[in-house]
């Protein structure tokens, strides 16, 4: 079946089987491999992208369902060399170790801040409920999203844990 959609501002076309999952279309047809495949059963959230602005697990959506959609993947977050504030937050607050969950975490974090610019720690933890990380214990991921939310509000992000310790 013919499909067309906008991904990261670019109109793309494809010819897919109905059973082609959106994540496979993105990774294998478009070679945008920043979106990861983790559990494949809708639990882990590594495949999270934005479909018409809403955080979506691309392993649980058919490519044909995305006909006409406006999609953003992790590759569409930075503007040239300028990282998106959530990406910057993960860099500044050590929000990743192995990095496998990171693209999905960043997409969920960005969607969360878009909906709620002033999330509490509790709201962040519930906001990334659909994303699993097996390295970090989530602590620094939450701090990374707090950092990004502050930056996006035009505020100075709270100091890092290690800065507080050494102060």
């Amino acid at each position, binding site marked *: 079946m013919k499909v067309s959609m906008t991904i990261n501002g670019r109109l793309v076309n494809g010819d897919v089987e*109905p*059973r082609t999952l959106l994540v496979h279309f993105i990774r294998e047809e478009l070679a945008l491999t920043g979106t990861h495949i983790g559990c*494949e059963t809708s639990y882990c959230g590594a495949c999270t992208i934005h479909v018409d602005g809403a955080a979506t697990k691309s392993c649980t*959506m058919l490519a*044909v369902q995305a006909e006409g959609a406006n999609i953003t993947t992790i590759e569409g977050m930075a503007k040239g060399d300028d990282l998106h504030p959530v990406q910057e937050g993960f860099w500044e607050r050590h929000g990743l170790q192995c990095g496998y969950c990171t693209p999905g975490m960043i997409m969920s974090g960005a969607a969360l801040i878009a909906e709620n610019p002033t999330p509490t720690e509790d709201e962040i933890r519930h906001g990334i409920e*659909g994303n699993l990380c097996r390295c970090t214990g989530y602590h620094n991921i939450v701090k990374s999203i707090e950092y990004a939310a502050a930056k996006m509000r035009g505020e100075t992000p709270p100091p890092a844990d290690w800065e507080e310790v050494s102060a």
Partner: protein
Amino acid sequence: MYPRSFDYVAAGSIEEAVGVLASNPGAKVMSGGMSLIPMMKLRLLSPETVVDIGRIGGLDTIEDKGDYISIGALVRHGAVASSALIGEHAKALQQAASWTGDPQVRNRGTLCGALAHADLAADTPAAALALGATMVAQGPGGTREIAAADFFVDSLMSALSPDEILVEARIPKRGGGSAYDKLGRRGGHSDYAVAGVAAWVSVSDGVVADCSIGITGVGTKPTLAVGSMEAMTGQGANGITAAADRALEGVTVLEDLYGSEAYKSHLAKVYTRRALEQAFAAAG
């Protein structure tokens, strides 16, 4: 994991979708796909044809119809959770929707899809039961109404015929107060319910004039807790604990990975008490 091959039809109308279902017994209807796609990927289900109703316009509205709230086939969990109208008149449903799945699932999954899927541990069926919802099913012969109490037939089995689509859920504005509370499989309110209970009560002169209670997660299907409903009627707040002790009458408790029969039986009573307490407080 790929699903097995299937034919895909993006229906332009409910009539068209019903027509495909009626002429193709191997077809399944899809709205958000949050239950269907994982089942197809795990090959628990391999329909010959998937009829996607997700592009049909005008089905994603929540409307105040005077004595009831109309929730269209494509209203997503997130929209139910953030609806002020549902929060005012159907708190239990709002809570159940807000604790369904995770943010990504709530962005795509639909209330009507979840009700039609009839998972034994889904949250919203309990609220639909407690709130006395009416399901509107559309088939080749037109529409018919099905009471929530008659809708959940068994695990993953609703009262819908294979050629019918759940096009609307109607939540009556009955006054009183309602609440949903649960223990999720991942603790707190996260994930499917190990035990989840929705309660609706109307209170007059400090006693319960009418009530209904829906239990999910514990048994083989979302079920009305008829024993607790009977015990609660005519009682004040001090009757809640005794009423909650009768939560399992009419419920076949299903032991599973998430708890023994004894544990889940215990949880059913605890959450019936908690839901009743919150509903009673909301009604007062």
